[in-house]
């Protein structure tokens, strides 16, 4: 029988996009948490960590409320793009983004705080702006642990089920990601499809784990 590979390609697209977004957003948040003092710092830390401990369906429910067609953000999105955000593949990206962000923030913050502060001092005393310190000194020194975390985040995005099904739904050929497709296949008694998808996703996860271990060095920056 012919296997429909659409869920795999969709999942890969969602995971790549959400990981890229999570890396940028996560580094930015981690930088603030690691180097700046501001009111509500611990609250921000707790807020970005929350998805790690919340049940995915709860996180999905919150996102549905915040991004739904009746919410201001949902309205705004609809006004910009002409269509709703929820129950599209873009919503799956948002789901994966929030699901993997805590991982990246946690490890990026640890990586940044692990950098010997004299490198930052040296760069500043040589006249570098904070932006230059970040781009030329902090980022390269934190790159490896952040890349490793990104790989894990990618795997997590690839396999997200609960959040995705809440806000992107299960529309075959449009929002059905691989994790959802496997559930669907089992439910409808399509064992062959489920087995094929499970094998593929397991192989991909193994490769990612191996790559993450390769890129994460035992040595610490600085």
């Amino acid at each position, binding site marked *: 029988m012919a296997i429909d590979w659409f869920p795999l390609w969709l999942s890969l697209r969602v995971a790549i996009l959400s990981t890229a977004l999570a890396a940028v957003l996560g580094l930015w948040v981690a930088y603030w948490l690691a180097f700046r003092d501001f009111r509500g710092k611990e609250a921000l830390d707790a807020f970005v960590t929350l998805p790690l401990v919340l049940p995915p369906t709860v996180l999905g429910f919150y996102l549905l409320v915040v991004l739904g067609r009746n919410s201001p953000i949902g309205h705004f999105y609809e006004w910009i793009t002409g269509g709703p955000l929820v129950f599209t593949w873009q919503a799956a990206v948002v789901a994966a983004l929030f699901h993997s962000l805590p991982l990246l923030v946690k490890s990026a913050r640890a990586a940044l705080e692990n950098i010997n502060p004299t490198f930052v001092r040296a*760069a500043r005393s*040589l006249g570098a702006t904070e932006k230059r310190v970040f781009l030329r000194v902090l980022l*390269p020194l934190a790159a490896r642990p952040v890349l490793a975390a990104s790989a894990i985040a990618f795997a997590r995005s690839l396999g997200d089920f609960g959040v995705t099904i809440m806000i992107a739904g299960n529309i075959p050929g449009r929002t059905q990601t691989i994790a959802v497709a496997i559930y669907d296949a089992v439910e409808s008694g399509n064992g062959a499809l489920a087995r094929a998808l499970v094998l593929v996703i397991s192989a991909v996860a193994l490769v990612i784990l191996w790559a993450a271990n390769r890129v994460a060095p035992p040595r610490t920056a600085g």
Partner: protein
Amino acid sequence: MILARLKKRFPPGTDSAGFSLDVDVKTTGGITVLFGPSGSGKTLTLDCIAGFVRPGEGRVMIGDDILFDGATNVHLAPRERRCGYVFQNYALFPHMTLRQNLEFAAAFRAKLDRHRRVSAMLERFRLNDMAGLKPHELSGGQKQRCSIARALLAEPRVLLLDEPAQGLDPALRVELHEVLRSVRAEFETPIVMVTHDLAEAFAVADEMLIYQNGTILQQGSPAGIFEKPATAAVAGVLGLYNLLEAEVVALDPGRNTCDLRYQEFDLHGPYLKGKFKGDRVWICVRPEELRATPRAGRPGMNQIPVQLHRATQRPGAMRLEFECGIQADLSRAEYEPQRHNKDWTVEFPTAAMRVL
């Protein structure tokens, strides 16, 4: 001219004693050495000048520019201060080659100009052959030169060095001192350097500041301080002297002498201005100024009988350490025949006696 009047208090914590810094550093150029024991506030002074640490109150100026002023709440960011800082561990960026490290410091220049200046600096510090290497591939001396070159490329108005010779072997130390002296001559950048190595302070300093417990005990030329420590505390920090507590017994302005009592012994010293009979004073003499001789008969004028505790090898001479704590130097040739003798006399030449 560099001026730093700094006050900063660190209240005692649960696991640390309190510390307070209260110093007034003023230097006009050349190499200024901050000398003192660990934890006396030397590096903190550098950090306050560079802007890494904000002093509680005071003022930091270079020339006519105010970098920090507690009263008017001026506190420039480190990048606006143009203070070249050479860190104890060099702080070369590990992900950049040596040349990239230098280029980072010259980023404010146009590309061609930057390339030319970096090349000139590599040449100047004999780093040409290693320009493409990463810091972990360099030797200690090369890293040292690279971090000085990098600091200079940013055109600093002062060069701050934090224990630059830490971890270098003696030959490299000498080379470093050579580099510092040539930097002083060539770049006309004032240098402020922290060390707790006395030989290093003497090797390079034009001006020396003696630190202890967050205050400056004495400021002056190394030779001047060596010849005449201002207080017993300075002599203690330098660690080069016998310090004997004594009492003024008599003062004779006519003959320009005084009588001092150290334990049960009488010593004749130079006349003491501003001291009175009965004052407690410190006699401060260097071991090489004392004359140690095997004891023969009654001790004469300014001689004290002493028991030898042990003798240790010094580069120049034997150092005899006596039971009472006095130390005296003796040439090896003179000591060798007397190596089993325990009974000695030390003589305090009147001219050598500093009384503090």
